[in-house]
């Protein structure tokens, strides 16, 4: 087990370098011209302006040279300067990462809670209306486009019924607390503003549900399949024979034994959540990495595009690594060389 973990850790730097290289190549060796983002249309005809812009942003150098400079700078935590915000990309991304993490974690909590409960119910009431309804819920969740679902729920719950707040992390009139962690729920508590904390949680509900639905579906299917298998085992019969209550049998005995695969699927769902966050953030005006990536892509802000892609790749890589290691540690039956 130790060897497996060590081997995975040693592979990490190479994978990260691969991520950097691929992100750099795929966004550079294409016909898109970053100049159109820097120089205004009128000045494109002025060779002096164009040459100056090229020299300033290093676009006059050869590709290998630019790659070497990029990787060199990256080692010092420098991802270049955004064409649009004119601030260092690394600073922009770090500034926006907490908002995305807060949304993704909230979505994970929503997805896991709904998914596990539905999966248990579906297995316990196997082949009844509850089972079929949970299957439909799962199928809809993985089929509905998140950007459309977000719009639809905002329209119904916020505009029509007015029971949930509109886009953003806080009420528009509220004064945000000083940024400490970047997590709005934590920062409001640190500032001792309990009402703002409730407001932040209130604003998280819709985007977290929109993002978490598909994950809830995947988790519920997996929990159901595992629960079905475990509920038919003999130790469940033993527990019942010894007079354990149904709740104790289902939750205490059966569900406990499905936790390893469940935790694993929750870990892997991170990829889906990061992908979905891009669109959810756009709909809910959420100031995270996803909406930053969309703005960058729309504005041909190449340093920002590469930076966000690299950070997304590395975050993704790390969570998958942690999930793999947690799986091996939690499950001694898995033997990997």
């Amino acid at each position: 087990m130790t060897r497996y973990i060590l081997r995975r850790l040693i592979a990490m730097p190479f994978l990260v370098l691969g991520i950097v290289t691929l992100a750099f190549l795929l966004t550079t060796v294409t016909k898109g011209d970053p100049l159109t983002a820097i120089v205004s249309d009128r000045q494109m005809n002025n060779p002096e302006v164009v040459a100056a812009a090229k020299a300033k942003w290093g676009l006059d150098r050869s590709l290998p040279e630019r790659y070497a400079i990029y990787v060199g700078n990256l080692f010092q935590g420098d991802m270049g300067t955004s064409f649009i915000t004119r601030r260092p990309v690394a600073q922009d991304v770090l500034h926006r990462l907490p908002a995305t993490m807060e949304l993704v974690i909230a979505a994970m909590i929503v997805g896991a809670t709904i998914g596990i409960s539905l999966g248990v119910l579906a297995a316990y009431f196997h082949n009844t209306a509850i089972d079929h309804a949970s299957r439909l819920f799962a199928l809809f969740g993985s089929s509905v486009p998140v950007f459309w679902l977000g719009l639809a729920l905002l329209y119904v719950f916020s505009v029509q019924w007015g029971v949930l707040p509109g886009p953003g992390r806080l009420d528009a009139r509220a004064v945000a607390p000083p940024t400490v962690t970047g997590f709005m729920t934590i920062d409001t508590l640190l500032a001792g503003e309990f009402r703002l904390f409730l407001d932040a949680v209130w604003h998280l509900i819709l985007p977290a549900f929109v993002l978490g639905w598909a994950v809830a579906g995947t988790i519920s299917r997996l929990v159901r399949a595992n629960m079905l298998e475990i509920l038919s085992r003999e130790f469940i019969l033993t527990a019942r024979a010894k007079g354990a209550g149904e709740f104790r049998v289902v939750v205490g005995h059966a569900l406990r034994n499905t936790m390893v695969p469940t935790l694993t699927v929750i870990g892997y769902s991170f990829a889906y959540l990061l992908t979905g966050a891009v669109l959810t953030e756009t709909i809910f005006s959420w100031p995270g990495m996803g909406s930053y990536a969309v703005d960058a892509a729309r504005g041909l802000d190449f340093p920002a595009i590469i930076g966000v892609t690299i950070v997304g790749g590395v975050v993704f890589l790390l969570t998958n690594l942690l999930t793999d290691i947690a799986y091996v540690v939690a499950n001694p039956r898995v033997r990997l060389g």
Partner: protein
Amino acid sequence: MTAQLAPRIVRPRWLTLPLMIGFGLILFWLLATVAAPWMTSYAPLDMVGRRLQPPSWDHLLGTDALGRDVLSRTLHGARHSIPIAVTVVFFAVSIGALLGALAGFIGGIVDTIIMRLVDVTLSFPPMLLAMAVAASLGPGLENAAIAMIIVWWPIYARLMRAQVLEVREREHVEAAVASGATQTRVLTHHVLPLCWTPVLISATMDLGQVILLAASLSFIGLGATPPTPEWGSMISDGASQFYSWWVALGPGLAILTIVLGFNFIGDGLHDYFDPRSK
């Protein structure tokens, strides 16, 4: 009595309810792809009424900000989304299967190079990588399709390699090698024919996911360009006309039902092949 006399249509055992719903939904959208002009009374790009009319008998799904009929545009949208998804999956399978088969069959350094490229590509959240590549290539559905092929081929490479590694150990391959068949002949005649089925099943199931990804790219302005009636960009129009809810309703339901169709089929096949989960 009459009920007993009437001929009964016997449903084959494998045709479960999820599969029937799935096939029904896909058939509807295939029909729309072929026959959209005859299914609607308005052209998708024509201004046919006042702008932003709510649904009525004349315009079942209302009109958009330019006075175009949303229902006609939604049905015509199938003619963009389905061919794009099929193209992307076709090229992704071709590239992925070729490289995966080579990696599995040749092994050694070729295997290492191809599979490291697969690992690195799959290390990105798909949407982020697709966005980055599509943005660098410039707007347009073709460029979005290229970006999606780049994101998608490694999945099939991994699948194909696993298949080849499994099949090449079988006895009939050993027999072919012993009887003097060349490497190429062993690969094309004895190994590959047995590898295709899982790859093709998985590719068909993926069509729904590719449709979702294409719509997502168009939604943020990296895919179809106006005035193309593409579902993602139509929902984007709907987002800018937020209070006219019907503008985004048609295209949203279109994506939902077609992806749901593929997922129903996938779910039904899963039940069929894995009876434990029934």
